[in-house]
């Protein structure tokens, strides 16, 4: 018996350690190969942490010290504290520890899923999430979203947790809510929608079961909503003008349509039948494939690029996940409990947001941003459904063939995700965030420009802009460089170009690059080259 107990214990430890280790390694990998923080958004955060350490004690919203950039403070404060504790410079401390903090979302997710479905499902789901391309990329960066991710999952974990006492749970929830709101208000708003959807689902489920409704569950999303509103009123008044009432109404419409649909899926009578299941699996796969294919033919969201045909491969995990999710849904319904179907409401709330981003006529910039950021929030509930599907194939279908199919799909999803990550970071694929990876020579060139620029304006793309403007405090005109290189503007005072422009073009707002004309190097050569280090060149007009 003791031997068996220790074996179970060892397995449990393995189940936790493996996904968390994979998550940490994959998220710090970009930093390890480049030696610099990942993501363009890292520079404002790092500068804030440096200023905070240099001027402390100082009010956190002191504009004379921090300029206008003092919102979304979570990762910045964390970076400053870690830097002070480790003695490392903020740039290195944050480049390493913020992604590590983001990777701990996998640990929270493991505990959350374990509480609902057990260790086996939790292990598979965590492994999927730990390797999911979009999640890895977005939580490898030094940015508010990375630091907000574990907080967001922690809030959902606390909401679903039945073991903690009410007051203890509410207290922890309030603290985590305030932290999340201070870190990333977009995540906070989405979490309010998710928790509201789950609360209502829970109440209706309990009403149907004829047990106490536990209306007090609505208090938790109300706390988060209240904290968010308070934050907007005190620190981000501009947000009220940023999104109009018409947009709020549109966004709420998608939530209101998907909620009853989810409720129906959660409550409907479970129908059995292998033929029906096979049909549903095929239909979902074809639907996801068709949607992906469409993205390679049309701009799905205004302002989005039309993706090359080979990008269907990068959507492979979603196409392969579709049938497994259908199986997972079946498995979830068999469990016959309100708690077990909560991930459906979670998924519905995020899909509602995606629906608004794609169909809701949001402005070109907003729609695109919401669409690609939303994918990251779809992943956790999707990973749960996926893991349930795989688990069903392994343990319940019983046939060797089902086992093989499950294993093959799992391997395909994991390997495609890893390859997508490799393609983004190492192969510098154009539409997968290649420009988030800064190299040391680019940093050196930017530091050199800082000494040269003075009051002059540098013409450079968005990648250059974030580094020069938000870290080195140099004036940058993003469009002047593009206009000059395409022959539509006068000579800039300083032009900053780098090697990736040959392959991927000029990065503009919205997270992708536009093509430069073939003779753009001639335009650059007509200026005086004053600096070159092999990767980055600087010209003076």
């Amino acid at each position, binding site marked *: 018996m003791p031997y068996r107990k220790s074996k179970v214990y060892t397995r449990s430890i393995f189940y936790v350690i493996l996904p968390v280790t994979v998550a940490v390694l994959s998220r710090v990998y970009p930093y390890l190969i480049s030696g610099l923080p990942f993501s363009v958004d890292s520079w404002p955060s790092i500068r804030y942490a440096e200023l905070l350490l240099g001027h402390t004690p100082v009010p956190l919203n002191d504009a004379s010290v921090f300029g206008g950039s003092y919102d979304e403070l979570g990762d910045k404060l964390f970076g400053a504290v870690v830097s002070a504790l480790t003695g490392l410079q903020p740039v290195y401390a944050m480049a390493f520890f913020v992604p590590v903090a983001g990777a701990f979302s996998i640990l929270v997710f493991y505990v959350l899923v374990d509480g609902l479905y057990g260790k086996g499902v939790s292990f598979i789901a965590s492994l999927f999430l730990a390797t999911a391309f979009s999640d890895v990329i977005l939580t490898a960066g030094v940015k508010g979203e990375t630091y907000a991710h574990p907080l967001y999952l922690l809030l959902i974990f606390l909401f679903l947790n039945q073991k903690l006492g009410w007051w203890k749970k509410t207290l922890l929830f309030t603290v985590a809510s305030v932290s999340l709101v201070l870190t990333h208000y977009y995540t906070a708003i989405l979490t309010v929608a998710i928790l509201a959807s789950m609360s209502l689902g829970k109440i209706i489920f309990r*009403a149907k079961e004829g047990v106490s409704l536990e209306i007090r569950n609505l208090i938790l999303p109300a706390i988060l909503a209240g904290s968010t509103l308070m934050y907007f009123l005190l620190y981000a008044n501009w947000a009220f003008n940023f999104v109009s009432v018409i947009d709020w109404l549109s966004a709420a419409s998608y939530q209101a349509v998907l909620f009853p649909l989810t409720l129906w899926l959660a409550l409907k009578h479970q129908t059995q039948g292998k033929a029906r299941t096979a049909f549903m699996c095929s239909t979902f796969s074809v639907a996801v494939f068709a949607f992906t294919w469409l993205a390679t033919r049309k701009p799905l969201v205004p302002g989005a690029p039309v993706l090359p045909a080979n990008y269907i491969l990068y959507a492979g995990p979603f196409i392969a996940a579709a049938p497994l999710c259908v199986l997972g849904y079946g498995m979830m319904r068999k469990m016959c409990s309100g708690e077990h179907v909560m991930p459906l409401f979670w998924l519905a709330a995020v899909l509602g947001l995606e629906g608004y981003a794609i169909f809701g*006529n949001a402005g070109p910039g907003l729609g695109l941003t919401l669409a690609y950021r939303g994918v990251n929030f779809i992943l956790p509930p999707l990973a749960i459904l996926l893991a349930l599907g795989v688990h069903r194939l392994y343990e319940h279908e019983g046939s060797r063939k089902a086992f093989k199919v499950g294993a093959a799909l799992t391997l395909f999803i994991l390997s495609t995700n890893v390859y997508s990550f490799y393609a983004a970071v190492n192969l510098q694929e154009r539409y997968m965030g290649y420009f988030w990876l800064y190299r040391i020579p680019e940093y050196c060139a930017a530091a050199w420009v800082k000494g040269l620029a003075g009051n002059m304006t540098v013409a450079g793309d968005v990648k250059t802009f974030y580094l020069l403007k938000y870290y080195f405090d140099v004036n940058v005109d993003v469009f002047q460089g593009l206009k000059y290189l395409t022959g539509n503007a006068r000579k800039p005072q300083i032009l900053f170009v780098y090697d990736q422009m040959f392959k991927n073009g000029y990065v503009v707002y919205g997270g992708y690059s536009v093509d430069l004309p073939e003779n753009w190097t001639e335009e650059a050569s007509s200026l005086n080259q004053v600096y070159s280090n092999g990767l980055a060149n600087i010209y003076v007009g």
Partner: protein
Amino acid sequence: MLLRKRGTALSIIAIALLVAILATTNSIINYVDLQVQTLGRLVSPGATYVILSRNSTSIMDSQVDAELVCKLSNLSYVGYVLPQKILMVNLTASPSSRTVHVRSVEDVGGFLKTRRAYINGTAAKNWTEANAGEILARALSISLGDEITLAVGGRQVKVRVVGVFRSQTQSDAELVVPMETANRLAGNKDTVSLIEFTLKEGVNSLEAVNQITQLLPENVKLVQAQQLKEFAQRMSMQTLAFLNMWSLAVYAAIVAASYVIATRLIIESSYELAMLRALGGKKLIPLVLVFTYTTTVAFTGSILGIALGTAGAQTASTMLRWIMPSVGITPFLEAEQALQTLLLTLASSILGCIHPALKTARTRYAEQPL
């Protein structure tokens, strides 16, 4: 208890589908209305009259005696008088050269103000200065401070662009200069291409126009500029009036649906209602229950309907855009419209359930079938 009945979901869906029709129609009409309003704003202010020469085939051919300007200005009921000379000019802005429309006015600043233009720079004040419309500036890569050459026939004038403006009128594709510049280019200052004028507010336009017509020589004609803005506003009002009338039919359907829902509820719950009365419940209890049930169903149904209508219209329009990229319909619903629909649906629903609810309240439990 009553809400857990099997028919509740179907009742909500029935109301939702009816409301969705309204929401969809409203959201599409809103888009069309916005487009019409935008179109209306593209045209210069309404109630404008223009004097042109009778035999001209285009504005450039038109030649109106400049003395008419003084005559018009002296009339007490005339608002503003704006003589304009329009020329086709060969514009040379290094390195390109193109033939463009040049519009000349006495007061360039005042003219741009009447066009509600936004200007980058200043308005031209003398014959060496000019203002370029945004479209023209982009097409010929003209920047603020550029020197350009204007030529008509053998005459040539060099001017500096001191402002680039956006008025969302046809002038955006033109160069606007002081009248003196045009006079130098055309070589005469006795005629203008057209005279634009307005009447003061409260003036009887028919009478005033008759008097002005009598003052005019025979070789000119008076035309009234199209008043697209007013036309657009009237179109919107008419569409809105029609929509309101048409939505009465939908609300009538909601009244009927609520009647059916309430009646069915009463029939299906007759046992429970009779039991309540038998146990000593007051007369009002069935009434309150039926009202509460119907209101809840209508409230949920209208929220779902508004959401379904808005999201459905937007989804359909986006999918249509994927298939036919030239289609750019973007439906949207205003918050006031959503609130109005919600309240009217609730009112219609209450109206529909009054009769069955009152009937139930009046029925004694002994008369009810158990």
